[in-house]
């Protein structure tokens, strides 16, 4: 089975995000970069399928030089090889242009399943997997929490509000992974050593025949609206008194209950 896992390098979830003074982007100083957590679920699932059915896992990643670290992490977890799409023309690519670049890198490779994270936790767009499927002309199941592959098809479970859908899909397909799919493994020390020797192909926009021209642009970054300072409820300093005061305020002042 040939499996592709797309990964992105993003700021760690504990990172404080500061907007640059001119609103042109975020200040990347001091940020710890990690593999997008949702992509990690995709890589882990890819490795489990390889362990079950045999075959190869290829990592595809778009990002600057530092993103190589994320590719190496995936290789250390057990993936076989990588493609690093690195071109300044693509750093600001929107979801469509990103999917175009990924599709160009993937076209021509053999694949049965392509994994993407359901969204990257930096731009939170959640579009790339679906666009990629469309560009490759294959089906997509998004937000998958359980996957069973059987022969030429797969059954994927995805949550919607108040229910879980079990969806059958033909292969090849794109699966976007979400929390619940699995518990990603840590890279072992021998894995980390081996990863250093695994092949990673570096490609630029010209080699892929894409321009990176984006249709959606973030024209301005702004900090979140400040919240007015809150009130600490003391009342008569008993839990009963505080609870009564709180319920009263929620009813009469905030008018939310």
């Amino acid at each position: 089975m040939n499996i592709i896992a797309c990964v992105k390098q993003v700021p760690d979830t504990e990172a404080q995000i500061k907007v640059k003074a001119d609103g042109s982007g975020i200040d990347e100083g001091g940020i710890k970069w990690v593999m997008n957590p949702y992509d990690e679920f995709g890589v882990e699932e890819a490795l489990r399928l390889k362990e079950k059915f045999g075959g190869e896992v290829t990592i595809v990643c778009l990002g600057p030089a530092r993103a190589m670290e994320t590719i190496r992490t995936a290789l250390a977890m057990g993936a076989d090889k990588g493609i690093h799409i690195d071109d300044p023309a693509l750093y600001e690519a929107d979801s469509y242009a990103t999917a175009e670049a990924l599709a160009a890198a993937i076209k021509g490779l053999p694949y049965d399943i392509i994994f993407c994270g359901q969204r990257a936790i930096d731009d939170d767009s959640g579009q790339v997997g679906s666009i990629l499927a469309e560009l490759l002309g294959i089906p997509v199941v998004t937000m998958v929490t359980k996957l069973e592959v059987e022969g030429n098809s797969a059954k994927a479970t995805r949550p919607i509000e108040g229910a879980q859908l079990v969806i059958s899909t033909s292969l090849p397909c794109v699966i976007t992974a979400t929390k619940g799919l699995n518990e990603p493994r840590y890279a072992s020390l021998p894995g980390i050593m081996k990863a250093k020797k695994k092949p990673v192909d570096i490609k630029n926009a010209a080699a892929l025949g894409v321009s990176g021209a984006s249709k959606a642009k973030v024209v301005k970054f702004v900090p979140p609206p400040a919240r007015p300072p809150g009130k600490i409820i003391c009342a008569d300093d008993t839990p009963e008194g505080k609870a009564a005061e709180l319920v009263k305020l929620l009813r009469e002042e905030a008018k939310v209950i």
Partner: protein
Amino acid sequence: MAKGVFFVAECRDGALRKVSFELASTARKLADQLGDEVGAILCGSGVESLASELAKYGADKVFVVDNPALEPYTTGAHAQAVAQVVKDNSPSILLCAASAQGKDLSAALVGKLATGMATDCTDLRIENGRLVAVRPMYAGKCYGEVVISSDPQMASLRPNVFPVVECAKAGQVVKVDVALGELKTKVVEVIKDTGGKIDVTEANIVISGGRGMKGPENFAILEELAALLGAAVGASRAAVDAGWRPQSDQVGQTGKVVSPNLYIACGISGAIQHLAGMSSSKYIVAINKDPEAPIFQKADYGVVDDLFKVVPEMTKEVKKLLG
């Protein structure tokens, strides 16, 4: 030239979901600023009778694609149907819901229509005849203002944020036949969550518990209060990773981002990844024993005390209120 503000209505089990009216009202507001018409796109099986409800909230036209293959929802079938209506009518703006179904559909549509989209928007405005979409990024740690150079300019709207405003229009029904190509996915089973639980992204009130809940059994006190208030019960990553609550309840950067009217955080210290998922709530209450907990910096009302004493007392007070 592209013209018109269109939106994709969302139905489930034969009824329109509330977010459809939020979409209709928002489309109406934008169309009035542009001097354009509002077109609703309604796809499903036996859904034509729902068109008049969309007219009530501002739809000039309702494009109805009625086909048994559109029920239940699948990405492939709905994306083909909506894309057809869009290609035939060339709207300048296309709005979708940022619900589970809407996120899935809208992302596939971006691929089919080769355009750009701002996901999960919390505000939309028109500048120089083009859409400016405001959306949280990094789970709300910052916001981005997005403009889209291609048509239709797509935006998905975060449920529960945009107001529903009645504004009756003609709602002229336009039936559209779409020849659906081969469908590669199929819903084989629908497993309903037990007890008619409200999803954290859809509830007006969310009561969440964290590590301070000390164990899964103690969530019962949150559930009792939630039942009285019609609230959903959420959880922090710590509570989910401990196996106390299902993943679908997790609020935060690696869970769901919520914007209810009222968010009550119980025994949650307020790790940045949790704060990111709930800071856009209208009112935030924090109940925590530790006065230094970062959650208090986001709270409108803070109670420094033992949640196991405060929450049951709140339940008593609310019972009194509701008679």
